[in-house]
C-alpha cells in the first residue's frame, strides 16, 4: 500500500517536471537591454547632487501600475539613486491605481510617491492639497526649459507644480510586421490605409488585431483609437474642449470618432476573431497575431513601447526587420502631424528628505537617459541624450515626438477618473452592441455633468 502511494507520487512529480525539461530550444527572445556603466555612474552623481551630498537612507513607498518586465526595467532606473542615497524604494503595483490611491489618501495612509499615468488625477489631487507642491523643491527655470509647457501645465494646479513626467509614450502608432504586411508604410492619409484594409478584408483576411481586456482598466486601447479619431478628424481645438468636459459626448465630432472605431472593432471581417475576441483578448496578447503562422492580422494600434516589448517577449522578433510602425495618419489634411502622447508622472505625497531628493533626481537628464536606456519608454525630458535609446524604433518614436506639429495628451488620462472610467465602459459596451451608441453617449454626458467638479 505504502509502496503504491510512493510510486504514484513519484510518477506525478515526474509528470510535472518532464514538460519543463523538454522545453523546445528555438530562437530565444531578446534579452532586455542593460544600462551602460557610464550612464549609471552619471546618474549616481546626479542622485548625490539631488540629495545635497547627504545619505538620508530610509524607505520610499512608491505606488504604480507597472508589473513584469516593464517594472524590472523601471526599478533599474532607480538603482543609482538607491546606491547614492542609501534609500530603499519599495514598489507597490496595482492596475486600479486611481481607486487605490484615493482610498489610501482618504484612509490617512498615502504612499510616499505615486507614479500615475493619469495627469488629470494629479491635477485634481494637487488642487485638493493632497500633494506636496514641487516649486520650492526644484529648479523651476531649468524645469521650464527641459519640459514642454503642455506637460507642465497638465500637472499644475493653482499655479503650483505637482508632478514630473518621467516618460512619455507616443500613443496610437500603427504597428506592422514587415515580413507579411505589404500595404502603405508612409500613408499620408487614413484613406490610404482603409483602401488597403478593405482590399485585404475582401480577400478574406482580417487586417486588424485589437485587444481591449485589461482588468479594471479594460477598454483603454479602444479609448486610444477613439481619441486618435477625434484628434485626426476634428483637430486639436475640439480635442481640448472634449477632454476638458466642454464638448458634449453626443456632439458629431465624438460620435463620428466612435463610429470610425466601430467600423473596425465591431466588424468580424475587419478585426481578427470579431468583436468577441476584441472584448476578451488582453491588450498584452493581441499583437501576437502579427506573428502567428498564418498571420491573424497585419496591423495593430499601440503605443511606442510595443516594438521593444515584442522583441523581448516573442522569440525571433527583431526590431525594424520584424516589427515596425508608422504614425496614425490624419483623416483631414489640416490635422496632419498631430500625435497623442501619454506619460506617467511622479507626484510627492509626503514631504521627507528622501522624497525631495528623489523628485530632484527624476528631474535630471541623467535619470532620463536611463529611462531611455530601458528600451521601453521615451524620456519626457527634452535634454535626454538621444544616443541613450537602445533601438532604432525608440529613436524613431523619439523623433516623431520631437518633430510633431501638434502634441496632445491622451484624453482618457487628462479627464477626471470618474469620466475616464465611464469612457472605458462605454467603449466596451459600444463594441459589444454598436446599435447602442446614442444611449452610451447620452450616459457619458450625464456623467460629464457631475465628474468635472
Amino acid at each position, binding site marked *: 500500500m505504502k509502496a503504491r502511494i510512493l510510486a504514484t507520487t513519484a510518477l506525478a512529480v515526474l509528470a510535472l517536471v518532464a514538460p519543463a525539461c523538454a522545453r523546445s530550444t528555438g530562437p530565444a527572445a531578446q534579452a532586455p537591454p542593460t544600462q551602460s556603466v557610464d550612464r549609471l555612474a552619471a546618474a549616481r552623481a546626479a542622485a548625490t547632487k539631488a540629495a545635497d551630498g547627504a545619505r538620508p537612507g530610509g524607505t520610499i513607498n512608491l505606488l504604480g501600475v507597472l508589473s513584469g518586465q516593464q517594472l524590472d526595467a523601471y526599478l533599474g532606473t532607480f538603482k543609482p539613486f538607491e546606491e547614492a542615497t542609501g534609500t530603499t524604494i519599495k514598489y507597490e503595483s496595482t492596475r486600479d491605481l*486611481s*481607486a487605490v490611491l*484615493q*482610498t489610501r489618501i482618504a484612509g490617512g495612509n498615502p504612499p510616499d510617491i505615486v507614479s500615475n499615468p493619469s495627469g488629470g488625477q494629479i491635477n485634481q489631487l494637487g488642487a485638493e492639497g493632497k500633494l506636496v507642491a514641487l516649486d520650492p523643491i526644484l529648479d523651476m527655470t531649468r524645469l521650464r526649459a527641459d519640459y514642454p509647457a503642455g506637460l507642465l501645465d497638465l500637472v499644475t494646479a493653482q499655479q503650483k507644480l505637482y508632478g514630473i513626467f518621467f516618460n512619455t509614450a507616443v500613443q496610437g502608432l500603427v504597428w506592422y510586421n514587415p515580413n507579411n504586411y505589404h500595404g502603405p508604410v508612409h500613408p499620408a492619409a487614413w484613406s490610404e490605409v482603409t483602401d488597403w484594409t478593405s482590399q485585404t478584408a475582401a480577400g478574406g483576411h482580417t487586417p486588424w488585431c485589437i485587444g481591449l481586456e485589461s*482588468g*479594471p482598466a*479594460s*477598454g483603454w486601447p479602444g479609448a486610444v483609437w477613439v481619441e486618435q479619431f477625434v484628434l485626426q478628424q476634428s483637430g486639436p481645438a475640439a480635442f481640448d474642449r472634449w477632454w476638458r468636459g466642454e464638448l458634449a459626448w453626443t456632439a458629431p465630432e465624438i460620435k463620428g470618432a466612435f463610429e470610425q472605431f466601430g467600423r473596425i472593432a465591431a466588424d468580424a471581417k475587419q478585426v*481578427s*476573431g*470579431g468583436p*468577441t*475576441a476584441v*472584448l*476578451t483578448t488582453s491588450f498584452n496578447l493581441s499583437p501576437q497575431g502579427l506573428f502567428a503562422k498564418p498571420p491573424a492580422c497585419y496591423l495593430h494600434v499601440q503605443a511606442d513601447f510595443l516594438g521593444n516589448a515584442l522583441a523581448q517577449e516573442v522569440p525571433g522578433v527583431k526590431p525594424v526587420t520584424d516589427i515596425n510602425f508608422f504614425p496614425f495618419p490624419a483623416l483631414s489634411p489640416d490635422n496632419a502631424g498631430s500625435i497623442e502622447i501619454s506619460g506617467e508622472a511622479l507626484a510627492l505625497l509626503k514631504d521627507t528628505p528622501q522624497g525631495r531628493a528623489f523628485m530632484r533626481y527624476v528631474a535630471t537628464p541623467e535619470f532620463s537617459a536611463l529611462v531611455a536606456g530601458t528600451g521601453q519608454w521615451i524620456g519626457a525630458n527634452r535634454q535626454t541624450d538621444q544616443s541613450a535609446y537602445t533601438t532604432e524604433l525608440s529613436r524613431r518614436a523619439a523623433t516623431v515626438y520631437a518633430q510633431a506639429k501638434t502634441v496632445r495628451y491622451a484624453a482618457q488620462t487628462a479627464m477626471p*477618473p*470618474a469620466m475616464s*472610467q465611464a469612457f472605458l*465602459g462605454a467603449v*466596451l*459596451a459600444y463594441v*459589444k452592441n454598436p446599435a447602442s451608441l446614442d444611449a452610451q453617449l447620452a450616459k457619458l454626458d450625464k456623467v460629464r455633468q*457631475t*465628474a468635472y*467638479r
Partner: protein
Amino acid sequence: MTGIRIIQACVFISAAAALLLGWLWAADRIAAAVPRRIRRGVLGWLWLAPAVAFVGLYLAWPLVHTVVLSFRDSSSQAWAGLGNYRYLVDDAAVHSALRNNLLWLVLLTGVCLGTGLLVATLADRVRYEGLAKAVVVLPTAIPFVAGAVIWRFMYQYQPPGLPQTGTVNAVWTTTTGAAPLAWLVDGRTNNVALIAVGIWMTTGFATVILSAALKSIPPELREAARVDGAGSWQVFRHVTLPHLRPTLVVTTTLLAISAFKAFDIVYVMTNGNFDTDVIANLMYRQLFVDRDYGRASAIAVLLAAVAVPILLINVRATRAERETA
C-alpha cells in the same frame, strides 16, 4: 523599529487586560453599593458596558453617520434631501445591478443550499466522507480574489478554430463540438458564469454547517422510521428535514447575505461591464472612483435595509435551533 513595536504591543495588551479586570472589580464595588433588589440587573449592565461602548463606537455610530451622509450631497458639504434616494430609484445602472443581485440571491442561495445538503447527506453514508467533504470545502479556503483570477483563466475565449486556452471552452468545444463561447462577455452566460464561481467558493461553507446539523440528529429516530417501513426518501423528508429546518433557515440567511455582498468576483472578472454589475461593485465605484459620498452612502443604507429582515429571520431561527438542540 520592530522591537519598539513589539514592546508597544505588549504594553497595550497588558494595559487592556488590566483595565478590564479593573472594570470588573469596580463593577463589583458599585453593585455592592446599590439596593439588593436591582443588584443583579445593575451588575449585568455594568459587565456589558465596555462591549456596548465598543459596538456603539465602531458599529452603531458609523451606521448612523452613513444614514446622515446619505442625505447630504456628493462631497458631504450640503444637504441634498432625498436626491441620493431618487438616484437609486431612477438610475438604470442601479436597476440593472439590483436585478443581477436578485439573480445572485436566487441562484447562489438555492444551489449552495441544495448542493450542500446533498453532499452532507450522501457523504454521511460513505467511508470516504472526509475526502468527499474536503473536495467540496477546499475552495472556501482561498480568497475570493484568487478564485476569481483562477476562473478568469478558465473562462478564456479564443476565436473558433484556434486552440482554446480556457479550460471551460476547451471542454465545451471538445465534448459538444459547438463553437467556443465568450462566457464573461456574452449576455446569455456571463451572470451565471460569475454566480457559478461564487457557488464554487461558497458551497463548502453550507456543507460544513449542514453536515454538523445532520450529525446532531439522534440516529434512533431514523432507525425507528426504517423499522416502521419508511424508504430512504421518506426518512429524509419526514425525519431529517424537519430536524434540519432551523439550520436550513440560518444557512439560507447567511447565503442570502453573501449574495448581496458579492464584489470581488464581479470586480476582478468583469468590473461590472456587459450588464454584470452588482450593487456592491456600484458602491465601490461611487465611493472610490466617482467619490460621490452621498450616493455611496445611499447604496450602503439600501444594503443595510435589505440585510436587516434577513438578519431578523436569522436571529429567530438561531433561537429556535437552540431550543430544539
